[in-house]
C-alpha cells in the first residue's frame, strides 16, 4: 500500500502538462461556445446530428492505427473502429442533409 502510494505520488509529480494541447483545447472550447450560441434553436436537431458526425473524426486515429500498428490486435481493433466510425460519419452527414433539406421558407 505504502509502495503504491509512493509510486502514485511520484507519478503524479512527474506529470508534464502539455501546454500546447491545453491551449488548443481551451481556445477551441471558447470558439465552440460562441459559435454554438449563434445556432438558431430551430436547428438544434441538425446541430446534434452534425456534431455527432464530426466527432467521428477520431477515425483518423483509427485509420492511422490500422495502417501503422505493429501488433495484430491493435490493427484488428482499429479496423473495427474504422467500420463503426464510417457508419457514423456517413449516417450523420446524411441524416443532417435530410433534415436540413426539409427546412424551407414559405
Amino acid at each position: 500500500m505504502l509502495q503504491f502510494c509512493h509510486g502514485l505520488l511520484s507519478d503524479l509529480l512527474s506529470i508534464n502538462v502539455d501546454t500546447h494541447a491545453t491551449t488548443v483545447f481551451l481556445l477551441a472550447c471558447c470558439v465552440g461556445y460562441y459559435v454554438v450560441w449563434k445556432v438558431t434553436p430551430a436547428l438544434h436537431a441538425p446541430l446534434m446530428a452534425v456534431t455527432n458526425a464530426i466527432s467521428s473524426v477520431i477515425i483518423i486515429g483509427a485509420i492511422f492505427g490500422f495502417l501503422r500498428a505493429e501488433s495484430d490486435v491493435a490493427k484488428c481493433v482499429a479496423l473495427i473502429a474504422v467500420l463503426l466510425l464510417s457508419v457514423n460519419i456517413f449516417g450523420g452527414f446524411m441524416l443532417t442533409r435530410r433534415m436540413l433539406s426539409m427546412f424551407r421558407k414559405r
Partner: protein
Amino acid sequence: MTNVMYLISALCFIGALRGLASAQTSRLGNWIAIFGMLIAIVGVCIKAGRNDFALLFGTIGAGAAIGNIIALRVSMVSLPQMVAGFHSLVGLSAVLVACAVFCSPHSFGILENGNICISGLVEMGLGVAIGAITFTGSLIAFLKLQGLYKGHNISRAFNFAFGSGVICLLIYFIYAKSLIAFVLLACASMVLGATLVIPIGGADMPVVVSLLNSYSGWAASGIGFTLHNDLLIITGALVGASGAILSYIMCKGMNRSLLDVIFSTSFGGGATKSQNVVSNFHQGMPEDIACMLASAQSVIIVPGYGMATSKAQHALKELGDTLKKRGVSVRYAIHPVAGRMPGHMNVLLAEADVPYDEVFELDEINGEFSSCDVAYVIGANDITNPAAKTDPGSPIYGMPILEVSRAKAVVFLKRSMGVGYAGVDNSLFYAENTIMLLGDAKKNTEEVVRAL
C-alpha cells in the same frame, strides 16, 4: 503537409457549425463539414504513407453503405433514438482507438524513453472512461427512446459509489499501466454508463441525449490529447461545448439543474396526483372545434411529444393550410423541451413542410397568446401548465411555460385525461374556456380538417 490539412479540416468544422446560424446557410455548412472530413481522411492516409488501402477503403465503403441506409430509412419521429444510437458508436470507437494506441504505442509515436508518459496515460484513461460511459449510456437511451426498455430504479448512492470505484480504477490504470487495468477500466465505465441512464425518466431524455452528445466530444478530445493531435482536440472541444450548451438550454427549459437530471432526482410528483381528479371538464367533438377555428382570426398551435407519437404533423399542416385559406392567421409555438431531443418539434414540422417562418420559439410568441383566439395544444401538457407560474408547491414550479391560458379559447388534444410526465394535474383542463378533445391526436386533427 498533413498538419496543414488538419488545420483546414478544423476550420471547416467550425464553419459548418457557424452555417447552422440560419436555415439558408446550413446546407452549405453541411457540405463544408463533409469536405473537412474528407480532407482529414486524405491527410491521415498521406501521413501513414502505407498503401495497403484495399481493406481500409473496403471497410469504409461497407460502413458508408450501412450508415446511409440507416439515415435514409429512419423516420423523423424516431430521430432521438437514432442520434443516441450514433453517439454510442462514437463512444465505443473512442474506447477501441484508445485500445489500439495502448497495444501499439510505438507506432503512434507517443513514447517517451520507451514508455507512455504519465500525462498520456491520464488523458487516455479519461478518454476511455468517458467513451465507455457514452457507449453504454447512449445504448440505454436508445433502448428507452425506442420503447424497448422501461428502466429501473437505481439509487443515487449506488451510482455515487460505483463512480468512485471507476475513478479508483482510473488511478490504478495510470499506476499499473497494464492491459488488464485498461480492460477493467473500460468495463467498469461501461457498467457505470448504463446505471447512470437506467433510472432517468422520459421527459429528461432531451438533457440526456445532449449530455451524451457532449461526452462523445470530450472522449474524442481525450484521444486527441493522447495522440498529440490538434484536430481531434479541436473537434472534440467543439462537440463537447455544443452538447454542453444544449444540455444547459434543456435544463433551463425545465427549470431543473443538471445535477438533478444526472442523478435522476424525480419530480417528486405522485403526492399531487389525486387531488382534483373529480373536477369537471368540457369535452368537445371535432365538429365543435372546427366551428371554433373557422370563426377565429388567429390560431396558435402548440405541439408536444404527443404529436410525435401519433405522427400528427402532416394532419396538422393540412389543418394549418385549410385555416390559412380561410384567412385565419396560423402560427406554431415551440417550447425548448417539447419532444425528446432539442429541436425535435421543429424537424417534425419541417418534415410536414410547415414553413419555418411560421414557427416561433417560447420567448418570441409568449406575448402573442393574449391576442390569439384559439390555442390548439396537441400532445403537450406540462409545458403549458399554469401551476409552473402560480403554485410554489408544484414540482414544476419555476419552469417557463407557454402561456396558452391567455388565449380566448384553448383546445387540448390528449390521449386521455391522465397526468403528464411530471405527474402534475393541469388546472387548464378544467378551465371555463378549455375544450378537451380526447383520443388519437392524428385522427382527431384529420376529423377537424374534414369538418372544416
